[in-house]
């Protein structure tokens, strides 16, 4: 498939801090591509460079056929973005926000109205069009921002943490809009997130970002398969030795480890193997207390690569400001 974004050893330094440290990847046309990583990983900085808001310290990127350094204006014409922090004007109505946006992209008057109403329909805010944005809920604001980002028919839509701070139900809703618009408009989408499920649910491919670097990049399925399948934990009341001995001879178990009276088995398609494990235990009179099946998530893969989880709290003044704003907007 055609490449629409090509990033080559892109870096950004703030003083001595290497916020983005030589990342390279490409995105195909029509793909939903995700950058997944903890706070401060450099996701937003990457997005800001690709959307021409920040100048890279080194490296280059071609976005929608144009170089971000040498023709930023041509890049800007072809992209839409939803920022991590809210960027709507609260004192304007939903319609006005989109209208001003359309004027800023020089959409002729006759097409303007049509585009705006199409986008309002896409994000299901037609009936709120003339309400001041300050009276919108958090989820409605996010939807309006997504609609706004699409008014000028960009080739690529950048979504920086599209569902941050939203409740799980609203988050699901936004996911539906995102996949709907990706299918219906064929817009390429590149999103950042630190929600595992978001990346897993939406993205065709995911890049794990940590400390400004990409530590792994593949489809969610391939990433998870890399860990060698599911973990079946068997809690044994009596007969640990006997069961372990026999399980060690079973071909479909790739590894076994013991933790107290837990036996952890690494198994592909664990749910199908549980009955067999029970049968083997019964045959040897082993007493099983409980069995627990754990499917690896992208989080496990992330931990595998970086030795730590994705959610990590870090408070700088920006986060504090964000909290204030979020509280005000509620």
């Amino acid at each position, binding site marked *: 498939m055609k490449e629409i974004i090509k990033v080559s050893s892109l870096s950004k330094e703030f003083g001595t801090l290497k916020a983005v440290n030589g990342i390279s990847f490409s995105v195909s046309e029509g793909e939903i591509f995700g950058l997944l990583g903890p706070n401060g990983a450099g996701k*937003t900085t990457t997005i*800001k460079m690709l*959307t*021409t*808001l*920040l*100048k890279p310290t080194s490296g280059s990127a071609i976005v929608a056929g144009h170089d971000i350094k040498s023709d930023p*204006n*041509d890049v*800007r*014409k072809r*992209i839409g*973005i939803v*920022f991590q*922090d*809210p*960027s*709507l*004007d609260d*004192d*304007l109505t939903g319609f*006005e926000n989109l209208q*001003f*946006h359309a*004027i*800023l*992209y*020089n959409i002729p008057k006759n097409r303007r109205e049509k585009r705006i109403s199409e986008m309002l329909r896409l994000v299901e805010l037609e009936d709120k069009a003339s309400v*001041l944005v300050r009276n919108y809920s958090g989820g409605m604001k996010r939807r309006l921002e997504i609609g*706004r980002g699409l008014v000028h028919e960009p080739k690529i839509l950048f979504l920086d943490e599209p569902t941050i701070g939203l409740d799980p139900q609203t988050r699901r809703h936004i996911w539906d809009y995102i996949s709907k618009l990706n299918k219906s408009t064929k817009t390429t989408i590149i999103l950042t997130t630190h929600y595992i499920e978001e990346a897993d649910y939406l993205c065709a491919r995911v890049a794990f970002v940590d400390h400004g670097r990409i530590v792994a990049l593949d489809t969610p399925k391939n990433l998870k398969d890399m860990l060698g399948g599911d973990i079946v934990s068997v809690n044994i009341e009596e007969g640990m030795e006997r069961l372990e001995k026999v399980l060690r001879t079973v071909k479909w178990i790739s590894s076994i480890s013991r933790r107290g009276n837990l036996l952890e088995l690494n198994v592909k398609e664990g749910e199908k193997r549980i009955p067999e494990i029970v049968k083997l235990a019964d045959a040897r009179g082993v007493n099983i207390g409980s069995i627990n099946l754990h499917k690896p998530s992208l989080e496990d893969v992330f931990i595998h690569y970086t030795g730590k989880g994705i959610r990590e709290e870090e408070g700088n*003044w*920006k986060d504090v*400001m964000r909290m204030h*704003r979020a509280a005000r907007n509620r």
Partner: protein
Amino acid sequence: MTMEFNAIYVLWLRDTIRFVRAKSRIIGMLMMPLFFLLGLGLGLGSLVQLGSGISYFDFIVPGIIGMSLLFTSIFTGSAVLWDRQFGFLKEIMVTPNSRTSIVIGRIMGGATTAILQSILVIVIAMLIGFHVVLSAYTALAIVFMALIAATFISLGLTLGSVINDFQGFQLVTSFFTMPLFFLSDSIFPASALPVFVRNITFLNPLTYGIDGLRIALTGSGTFPVWIDLLAMAISTVIFVLIATYAFSRTDVG
């Protein structure tokens, strides 16, 4: 080219709509000039006698308008610091419009609201006894207001572009606003100052802006009106250029 006008127009329209919609904000912005009118104008005015034949109240109203233009303009301009990170500005910065048109749009929007606000102050002042002397120069009042606003919105934009943290910001803005305010002949005639200090006021654009307003509204001032106009025009051009330069160089976020 039409594109550039679009950006300017949208920024101007946005500020104007916001101003008209936010009634509470208008009242908030009128509070300070109102206190000055009452406290300095009427209170102090009853004790002070100026040699020039003009009442102290009539003298100080243009000064208070200049002051409120100074404060609102610097505040409006410097809001880019906040906007760069959290506001609508990022959305503008990522559109295919030049930085220059963004600066100009912002200045025009801010100047329009500052002028509307000043007109309200004049009306209130007239209600409590300010005498506007109509002359060929009266309409120039709007021009002086626009030039004062453009100069100091540009100063605010420059500060908001150069400074990167909120803590130092308050300090730096008051470091600029206070001397600009006191070292102009806003609340007392500069002739009352020692020569050395008086010479400093000649370097302050606000001195000429307020003098121009005084001529336009009350008919009497220190300098000929063309000097005031020239000085304000020059300071506007210089400050707008600096602001455009500073703003184009800043990164967003």
